[in-house]
């Protein structure tokens, strides 16, 4: 690229862009923003952004989160030091006994799935993953072609 030519070209384009006025915004822009603000203001406080929550609600949430954090820290510390681990474990077993049966069923299913995968072999799994990737690529490609055709017609 010739340096003088580049400089000359830059200056010419700069001349065209200089004093280029701002484009007029659509007439409805302001009203649309105001309508959106009204809509947001009409939402209940808990669905608005955190900054707009009432002070009492913000303080309460901070306290609740601090309490949860403290409980997690205390619980972890207790577990690590194991002083109450045995008692806690026994208690937890009692609480979660109904879940144990479900857990056993899920474990059996997972084990069966593992066995099936072992039987099928690596080639089949790699082939399936490749087919999935190919399908994904085709979806993206077809979507791209569709968008390009759609835009070209505008």
């Amino acid at each position, binding site marked *: 690229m010739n340096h003088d030519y580049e400089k000359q*070209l830059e200056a*010419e384009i700069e001349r065209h862009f200089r004093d*280029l006025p701002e484009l007029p*915004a*659509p007439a409805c*822009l302001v009203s649309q*923003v*105001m309508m959106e603000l009204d809509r947001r203001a009409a939402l209940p406080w808990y669905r608005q952004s955190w900054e707009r929550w009432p002070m009492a609600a913000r303080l309460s949430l901070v306290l609740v989160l601090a309490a949860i954090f403290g409980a997690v820290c205390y619980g972890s510390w207790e577990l690590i030091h194991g002083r109450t681990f045995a008692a806690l474990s026994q208690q937890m077993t009692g609480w979660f006994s109904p879940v144990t049966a479900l857990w056993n069923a899920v474990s059996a299913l997972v084990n069966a799935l593992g066995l099936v995968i072992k039987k099928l072999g690596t080639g089949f799994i790699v082939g399936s993953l490749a087919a999935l990737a190919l399908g994904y690529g085709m979806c993206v490609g077809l979507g791209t072609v569709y968008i390009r055709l759609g835009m070209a017609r505008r």
Partner: protein
Amino acid sequence: MTDAEQFEAFMRNYQNMVFSTAMRLVANEAEAQDIAQEVFLKAYERFGELKDSVTVGGWLRTVARNMSLNHLTRYRSRWSFFSEMFTGGGEEGERELEFAAPEDMEADIERADQHELVERALQKLPPAQRVPLVLYHLEGLRYEEIAAKLNVSLGKVKTDIFRGREALRKKLRSQLGEEVRTV
């Protein structure tokens, strides 16, 4: 004046600037309008500090620019990758830059002034050339800043801007020449 009225007046002052920034980058009126709306909704969240700030114009411009670039990255990167594969990349720009048929353009030129021609020629540039060109000439960013913002190499930014300028000049010269002849 209530807060709502103040904000409305604030928007009226800056709406053209915000919309222009978005429009020149995304080259689509509906998308630029959506971006401008988001910019003002963001501004409303901080209106307390913005309304008395002397740098509010710069803040709005930066937010509009970043939102436009995010928009382009989010919605166009995937299909532009494929489109470049199909059309051979850089050549696409030359093809898309072609203006409409001469008889259509004559009617357009009659009601268009030079600024409109520049705007229209700019919007017809492919994004790969238009975006760095706008960032350089209209947003005042340096090559290095543009490369960082677009996450491309410095060499690519320079090449795209050079190609964009050449394509723009070619079209503007022919269009302005046509206009002079018709007057």
